[in-house]
């Protein structure tokens, strides 16, 4: 709705400007206005059509037609002419993108087969269309009277233009539908190869046509030389530009997007002025960069994602504005007939190509559907002919444009249908997954009576991964920590879970003492945890802990290797306990696909240097294909660490690190909560009873409830919170007896000295605050509860609280903040959130505090208590949008999709960036 309102405002502004009168003094009257209006309006229209499952490109064309000089006249004829300035750059850019999509390495042995298939398809289609065209020439609305060589030349151009395909459209549809498989790969390679051939044929035909019509100079050898220059020179020019551009990216690497557009302008201009085929040069440049400069290719693709959308949107609008509906309707029948004949011969050609190529039959059945679309290159050809041969060239352009309109509409729908039929879209047979984590999703314990009870992990991450595993199947490898875990597994230490509906395998790994304590309590929790959190606890690094950490990680890797067997399933590694699994697994299985999510912060380089084995840790992480952090800050810190500690090659723009002959993508994917589950709890009629139970259990008599929910950890800032409460009570004594702060503090890692000391300290402080501010007969100031609560009880408590406090001294994310927001569908309650928690990066409508500034913290609590209902509602509404938009399932699937897309990268990655959003 907002988008349509915005479009209405833009239209109103355009009308207003038109009424005021366009007064620009230069010849380029209102070019920028036309460009801006085209960009904005087409983006909105494309997005609107996408909701009806129509391609965005169709929306751009439709918008161009509607506002163009022949219908709405909001973009006047002179403005439309100015839009054509972009056409040259855009067609060159499209050709360059086409070159970037053809990775010879990735296509490997199939390339020869695909080339045979392409050649045969083109041969049949060209021959067939030429024969039909020759016979039906008098009825074609081009130049009915033409005969002999003139007719032959015109026909050659017409056939080449009509047969040409659209790499951009085809790639866009593949990306749009999320298709993956041999059909999409083959068709994309085919259209690029075919258009490469068509570019050469077009140059040859243009030269021949110039000779026939006497518009070119020279004869015989001269013409051949010019042709060689046009084709060979274009390829050489393209190769040089590609190499230079790759060098520029490698050694300068600044403002690549702008330089890319400038390069396209140069290719277009130099090509046109020096009689070099600019599109051929652009394809050659793209091919060079993709295949000879792999590292730079990634950077360039990032630049394409950034720079291409506006140019391409304007290009398609420009095409739309040039469509004369009256002329198109007059020529419509011929265009329909031409499209039908083209389609028939393409289908025939694909059939013949299948026999020659030896490609799988499934590809042949639907490959033709991907060869229907036409767009930029075809339009570029037609526009070149119209410019050089006004008269019949214009007629030819009109016919081609009319048939493109048909192909634009039909092509994407047909191709999508073909991909669906080939099982490459929305394939509901998700590939299995291997998850490796320290903690298991289901624990088996024995109760006092000796019965075995199963307990599912309740943490948000465990729930999300469990849901993913239920859907995809596979194996989850984890340390068996339950007292009855060994009793329920089979001889291979496996069992199927979940108990109520077994859908994947849980493989338990047994880690004996003292190795487990050294690996988990020692290196992970006394070393890495304080290293990564900026708090006043010194990390402890002991060589025996490090040895245990290495040993356990190697064991997890060996288990993953065994479970993978012959499968190519991706491996998802969970958290900082498993930093060395990937290198150990890669030693056993070099082609393994692994992603690791690092849940806690990543330290800045100076702090990282505390760790004696930092280089091993960073190198170990770089053995993954994908590393995901919670926050951008952590991602950046890691990139710096890779560069400083290992001298690894860091590509900032694409966020990739090259080290040891491998490339690792580093991303930030903030985790969310199970929003729907919390919503269901919040709407449960039993919630009121649970709230009553909790009031009784916790002795909540006060009218005003504050809440803190934490695992007892020195990073959570609980002493600071108690200090702030103390200061609040000093500042506002009227709250004594009227307000109770419920602190849920679940002990963890109590066997570690630092944790035990902190637990004792919190107990002392709670007692002190209560003693200091107690009111006889009134409610206690702090209610301290150390027993864990079930998720439902927590939601009940969130709904009771007026204020929820998260005061972490440093935290990767902190899901309590998001759970509180998710639970408050009444849009009430105030979240007081530490700026040092990762959640503060997203929930900026919370009351943000610095836990180290106790006075300001107390003032923030006071402000939260006094906050009006309207302000609470506005803040909560804003935060709920954020939390609802990023739940834990998005998080898990984002990481896995990121991992999987690395293998389909060359084709999808090239266009996905702009397709996903606007083109």
């Amino acid at each position: 709705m907002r988008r349509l309102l915005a479009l209405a405002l833009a239209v109103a502004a355009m009308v207003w400007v038109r009424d005021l009168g366009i007064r620009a003094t230069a010849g380029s009257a209102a070019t920028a206005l036309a460009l801006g209006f085209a960009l904005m309006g087409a983006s909105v229209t494309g997005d609107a059509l996408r909701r009806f499952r129509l391609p965005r490109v169709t929306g751009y064309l439709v918008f161009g037609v509607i506002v163009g000089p022949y219908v709405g006249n909001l973009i006047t004829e002179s403005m439309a002419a100015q839009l054509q300035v972009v056409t040259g750059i855009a067609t060159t850019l499209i050709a360059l993108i086409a070159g970037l999509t053809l990775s010879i390495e990735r296509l490997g042995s199939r390339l020869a087969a695909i080339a045979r298939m392409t050649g045969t398809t083109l041969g049949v289609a060209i021959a067939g269309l030429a024969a039909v065209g020759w016979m039906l020439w008098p009825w074609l609305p081009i130049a009915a009277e033409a005969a002999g060589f003139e007719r032959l030349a015109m026909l050659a151009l017409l056939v080449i233009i009509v047969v040409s395909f659209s790499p951009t459209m085809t790639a866009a549809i593949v990306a749009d539908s999320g298709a993956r498989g041999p059909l999409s790969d083959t068709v994309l390679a085919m259209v690029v190869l075919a258009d490469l051939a068509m570019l050469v044929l077009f140059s040859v035909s243009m030269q021949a046509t110039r000779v026939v019509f006497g518009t070119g100079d020279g004869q015989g050898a001269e013409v051949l030389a010019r042709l060689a220059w046009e084709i060979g020179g274009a390829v050489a020019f393209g190769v040089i530009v590609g190499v230079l551009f790759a060098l520029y990216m490698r050694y300068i690497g600044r403002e690549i997007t702008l330089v890319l557009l400038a390069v396209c302008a140069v290719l277009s201009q130099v090509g046109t002025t020096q009689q070099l085929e600019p599109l051929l040069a652009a394809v050659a440049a793209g091919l060079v960069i993709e295949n000879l400069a792999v590292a730079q290719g990634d950077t360039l693709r990032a630049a394409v994602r950034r720079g291409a959308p506006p140019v391409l949107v304007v290009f398609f609008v420009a095409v739309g504005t040039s469509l004369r509906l009256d002329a198109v309707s007059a020529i419509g029948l011929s265009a329909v007939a031409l499209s039908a004949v083209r389609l028939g011969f393409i289908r025939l050609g694909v059939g013949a190509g299948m026999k020659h190529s030896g490609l799988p039959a499934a590809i042949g059945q639907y490959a033709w559907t991907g060869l229907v679309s036409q767009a930029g290159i075809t339009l570029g050809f037609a526009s070149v002919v119209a410019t050089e041969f006004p008269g019949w060239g214009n007629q030819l352009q009109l016919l081609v444009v009319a048939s493109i309109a048909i192909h634009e509409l039909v092509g994407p729908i047909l191709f999508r249908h073909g991909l669906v039929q080939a099982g490459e879209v929305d394939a509901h047979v998700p590939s299995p997954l291997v998850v490796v984590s320290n903690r298991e999703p289901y624990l088996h314990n024995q109760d006092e009576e000796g019965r075995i009870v199963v307990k599912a992990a309740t943490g948000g991450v465990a729930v999300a991964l469990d849901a993913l595993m239920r859907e995809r199947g596979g194996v989850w490898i984890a340390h068996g920590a339950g007292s009855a875990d060994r009793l329920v597994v089979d001889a291979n230490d496996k069992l199927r879970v979940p108990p109520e509906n077994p859908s994947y395998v849980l493989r338990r790994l047994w880690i004996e003492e003292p190795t487990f304590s050294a690996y988990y309590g020692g290196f992970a929790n006394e070393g890495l945890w304080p290293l990564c959190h900026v708090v006043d606890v010194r990390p402890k690094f002991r060589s025996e802990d490090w040895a245990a950490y290495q040993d356990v990680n190697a064991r997890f890797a060996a288990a993953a290797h065994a479970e993978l067997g012959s499968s190519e399933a991706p491996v998802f590694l969970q958290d900082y306990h498993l930093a060395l699994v990937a290198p150990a697994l890669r030693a056993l299985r070099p082609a393994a696909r692994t992603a690791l999510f690092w849940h806690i912060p990543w330290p800045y380089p100076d702090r990282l240097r505390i760790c004696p084995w930092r280089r091993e840790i960073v190198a170990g992480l770089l053995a993954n294909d994908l590393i995901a952090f919670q926050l951008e800050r952590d991602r950046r810190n890691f990139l710096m660490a890779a560069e400083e500690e290992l001298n690894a090659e860091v590509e900032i723009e694409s966020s990739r690190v090259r080290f040891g002959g491998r490339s690792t993508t580093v991303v930030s994917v903030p985790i969310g909560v199970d929003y729907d589950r919390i919503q269901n709890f919040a709407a449960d009629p039993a919630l009121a009873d649970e709230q009553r139970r909790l009031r009784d259990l916790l002795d909540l008599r006060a009218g005003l409830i504050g809440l803190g929910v934490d695992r007892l950890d020195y990073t959570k800032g609980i002493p600071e919170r108690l200090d702030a409460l103390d200061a609040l009570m000093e500042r506002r004594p009227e709250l004594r007896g009227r307000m109770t702060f419920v602190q849920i503090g679940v002990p963890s890692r109590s066997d570690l000295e630092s944790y035990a000391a902190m637990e004792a300290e919190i107990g002392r402080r709670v007692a002190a605050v209560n003693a200091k501010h107690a009111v006889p007969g009134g409610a206690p100031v702090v209610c301290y509860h150390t027993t864990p609560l079930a998720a439902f009880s927590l939601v009940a408590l969130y709904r009771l609280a007026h204020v929820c406090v998260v005061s972490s001294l440093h935290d990767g994310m902190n899901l309590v903040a998001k759970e509180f927001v998710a639970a408050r569908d009444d849009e009430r309650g105030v979240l007081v959130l530490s700026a040092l928690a990762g959640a503060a990066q997203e929930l900026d409508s919370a009351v943000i505090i610095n836990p180290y500034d106790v006075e300001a913290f107390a003032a923030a609590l006071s402000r939260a208590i006094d906050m009006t209902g309207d302000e609470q509602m506005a803040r909560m509404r804003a935060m709920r949008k954020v939390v609802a938009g990023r739940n834990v399932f998005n998080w898990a699937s984002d990481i896995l999709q990121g991992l999987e897309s690395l293998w389909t990268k060359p084709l999808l990655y090239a266009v996905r960036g702009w397709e996903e959003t606007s083109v």
Partner: protein
Amino acid sequence: MRFRPASWRGSLGWSATSAPVALLLLSGIAVGPQGINLLSEAVLSVLDSVVPVALAALGVLVGLGAGHHRAGDRYMFAAACLETAATAIVVAGGTAFVLSATIASTSWPVWTLPLAAGLCAATSLTLPTGNPLEPRTAAARVAELGVLLPIVAGGPLIASLREGAPAAGLILVAQASGVTLVLAAAGWLLLTRASGETEERVFAIAVLLLVGGVTDALSVSALLGGLVAGVFWRYAGRLPREAVSRDVLFVQHPLLVLVLLVAGAHTDLLPLSLGLGGAYAALRVAGTLAGGLMARQAVGARVPSDLGLHLLSPGVFGVAFALNAVRAVGSDASILLTMVVIGTIGSELVALFLPPQGAGT
């Protein structure tokens, strides 16, 4: 007077108060139609259509930064106004005197050229600082705030030149501002609903093109249009502000290069223009030094004692304003552009030989 090599290096770097302005202007002259003709009339006519967008983008940057209040800004703003007014008056008065002695008649109202020259001379800013929290000297802050007055005053002046009457000019500015606000609101609506960074970029570019395009189509000040839109986005919310700011900052250097090259290429190297340019440079130096002294007197030690020396380097906005006038008014304003380009090069050279002694307070 001691020449310091560091000044050379400083004058070639990019910052809020420095850029290789003179070098780029000279390059523009060299590659323009009066030079080797690489930027031929045909090429310039294409680049000219981008100029209003570049100018609007500069205006947007100023507008986005306008709301960031810093400690002591009242004094800085007072200093900026005093310095700007003093420079504008000295240059306008001097130019009027020189013109009356050299040119018998012009096609413009007699007061407009000196006034426009005064406004061009009154700015010393190259680029508004992208990050409001970035530390800057008092002199840099004065330069930042000092650009507001000329942009605001320049809008009606250009419109008056176009319309031939001040009242009609004011009406036109009001109408153009209305259209700009409507477009800025449309941009705000889109940017708050963008599905990703790429879409944000498309919308941000679209709305910049529209703002620049509207001012171009109505022949009003693109700098003022950009300023109006920038201020709107500054107060409309964080998301549009950050999206627009990010994308404008991404292209700021190329845009500045474009503005300076095009301005240089449009310069007519006639003896009269060169003379006027020399006079402009001399008057600007005198006005800036006098303005700096007055500002120091008025606000005390909050600004450096050699404030005028800090502001001698004329920056980009003066050239941008003159280019804006040419774009809006047509070739009638080319004498202004030539005078400002030559004067800017001269002022840069003077600034190079008269560097400030301290970094300011």
